[in-house]
């Protein structure tokens, strides 16, 4: 056991810190309400991706021959940590860089690599992921969006849901059914779909937070060239699993810094508050709750470090990713609740700290559903880690 960073890792961090100091744009503070300001915000985020690309920081974990920086997994985690530390803008390209790109690198044709990888890193192509459907959530392989071969095109019809970045994406990694007669896992194919194709429509999906972070996508007779099949026809399930493995591995890292920032804000906030004539930080129940939130967050950090260290030795995201996902999603729910308990009735208001605590609490309810529900994660742990029989 040695948790100190190696000399080359420290050097990587220092180089990155220096670059970030000179290149991180001031935070976007205007509310993005109307179409015009939303467009401006999009351009701001796109410009940040371009800045990263020009500085050689786009696709840090990708191999060098595909335009990446080829860094180790530990350096990748340093990268995410440092970006979070300087409160760098959010990454428009998370789906593309974390999920689509690595999958194209793994199974794509030479022509696909030429066509897609560089524009993705430059921020010209923004990707979304068309996986879930209204009737295919946890049971993803039951999806029903159909693609029928017509000459050198597939014709796609169906509906997708819970698509992040659907409203800004110009490309979509879409899973469709190409062989309805085959068993459900064996008739699927992955397609790379141009979102400007005729017949693609999206509708924002308002969540219980009131925000529309996701979209519903509708495909009506959308024509996709055969050359845009990713991997083999009817082998799409394996391709989708490759993509999801990358998703789960990526979701773990960087999250800690986000949660830590929330906790630090809470800590700062409580130091300004009084209740019953004394600072609430003198209340032993408040102290218990603050300490509990802190220790839960810290145990998550240590679990992440340990998983990272394990991945760095084995070079693959394993089913242990499910333990981490289960931990952080439930922890964030516990801590969002604790924050509300500490802040009391005023804290839940949309007018208190711009509704930060209300939003965090509501948004956290999605954590145990997105990227595999807690129930699915427990099934995965039971079956793939503990070797218990398949139960569904």
């Amino acid at each position, binding site marked *: *056991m*040695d*948790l*100190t*960073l*190696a000399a080359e*890792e420290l050097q990587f961090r220092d180089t990155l810190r220096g670059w970030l100091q000179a290149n991180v744009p001031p935070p976007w503070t205007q509310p993005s309400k109307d179409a015009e300001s939303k467009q401006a915000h999009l351009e701001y985020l796109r410009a940040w991706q371009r800045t990263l690309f020009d500085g050689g920081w786009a696709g840090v974990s990708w191999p060098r021959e595909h335009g990446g920086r080829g860094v180790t997994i*530990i350096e990748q985690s340093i990268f995410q940590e440092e970006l979070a530390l300087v409160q760098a803008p959010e990454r428009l390209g998370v789906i593309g860089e974390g999920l689509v790109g690595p999958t194209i690198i793994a199974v794509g044709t030479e022509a696909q690599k030429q066509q897609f990888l560089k524009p993705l890193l430059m921020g010209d192509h923004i990707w979304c992921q068309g996986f879930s459907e209204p009737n295919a959530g946890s049971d993803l392989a039951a999806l029903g969006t159909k693609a029928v071969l017509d000459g050198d095109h597939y014709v796609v019809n169906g509906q997708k849901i819970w698509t992040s970045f659907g409203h800004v994406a110009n490309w979509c990694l879409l899973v469709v059914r190409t062989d309805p007669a085959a068993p459900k896992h064996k008739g699927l194919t992955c397609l790379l779909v141009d979102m400007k194709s005729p017949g693609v429509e999206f509708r924002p999906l308002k969540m219980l937070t009131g925000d529309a972070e996701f979209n519903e996508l509708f495909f009506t007779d959308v024509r996709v060239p055969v050359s845009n099949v990713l991997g083999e026809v009817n082998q799409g399930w394996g391709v989708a699993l490759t993509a999801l493995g990358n998703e789960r591995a990526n979701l773990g890292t960087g999250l800690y810094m986000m949660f830590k920032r929330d906790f630090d804000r809470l*800590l700062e906030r409580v*130091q300004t508050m009084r209740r019953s004539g004394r600072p609430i*930080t003198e209340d*032993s129940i408040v*102290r*218990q709750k*603050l*300490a*509990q939130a*802190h*220790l839960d967050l*810290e*145990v998550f950090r*240590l*679990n992440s*470090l*340990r998983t*990272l*260290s*394990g991945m*760095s*030795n084995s070079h693959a995201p394993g089913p242990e990713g499910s*333990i981490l996902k*289960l*931990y952080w999603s439930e922890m964030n729910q516990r801590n969002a609740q604790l924050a509300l308990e500490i802040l009391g009735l005023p804290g839940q208001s949309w007018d208190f700290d711009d509704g930060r605590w209300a939003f965090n609490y509501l948004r956290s309810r999605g954590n145990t559903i997105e990227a595999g529900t807690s*129930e699915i*994660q*427990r*099934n995965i*742990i*039971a*079956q793939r*880690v*503990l*070797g*218990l*029989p398949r*139960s*569904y």
Partner: protein
Amino acid sequence: MEFDLSKPQKLLRETAHATLAQTCPLSRVREMMASETTHDKSLWQTIADQGWIGLHLDENVGGLGLGLVELTVIAEEMGRACLPGPYLATTWAATLLAQLANSQSIALLQSITLGEHTATVALLDQDSDWDIEQVQLQLRSTQSGWQLTGRKTLVLDAEASDTILCVVRQGSELAIVLVSARGSGLSLKKTRSLDATRTLYDVEFDGVSIAEHDIVAVGSQAREALEHSMRVATLAACAEMLGAMQWIRETTLDYAKTRKQFDRTIGSYQAVQHQCADMLLMTESARAATYYAAWALSASAPDADKAVAIAKAYCSDVGREVAHRGVQVHGGIGFTWEHDIHLFFKRIKVCEFLFGDATWQREQIAKLILA
């Protein structure tokens, strides 16, 4: 960065596991827990011969010169074997003596690490908690020298110990004095602790004479040595809980894979699978917290104190939870005296309170993060 045991550390774990499986099977644990002191001198000698008593201490005091990660490895295996007797008490006492580093304590340490001598620490006064500032028991000056009259409570393995390191006040200063556990004026009253594999005693001092050279530390030296030794002992308690959790988790999983109801193994039902998944998550998270604390303490990381408090708070909470769920998945057989799970369940339960339970530790964390 490496968040895993090194090869020698893994070897140490394997050796400890194999040695304890052979010398201290659960049938032996049951025999020892039926004895008055739960202490078995021949088993103790085996442990001492391996160098595991004070293995984290310098070689010049008889230790192996290893670190706290290695101590954690050994203590985890002792928890996994549910080893009875004074290992935790002696580890605490030896760590405290090593901090004092005077000729008196070094001589004692050398015989402790050889297995010839055992020791414990008497800290708690009646009604005090783990805050050392609450110690009140006064060392009194009389015409015939220093004398001790009063009571210490819940002293680990006092009867199996040769020496008691007693935490007292000399005037307003904190002091540590060495008292022979078999000397005159001292009486022991055993408490029937929930964990029968480890004993707790009330120690009554009635005019016990203390020689000047047995006052081994006073004031800030006493406080700092005691604080450090308690961090190490707390870590060892976490490691024991971790080992016990590991035993429960593995045994429960094996049971879920073999026990049949409705013509299927109970481990094929999701309700049981999810219990097993949660037990793994909690045990592995406790492992991350405990080994991080060991590393932070040995590397003198700035957050070392907090890391120990976090490990203890977390292990106390999830250790209990893993134990409860283990009994639940076992069903009726898990509720019997015959099944071994209650030995580990009770070991965890008492460790939950030793050196401060989760609530007490959270207050320590609060002090650190609000400072």
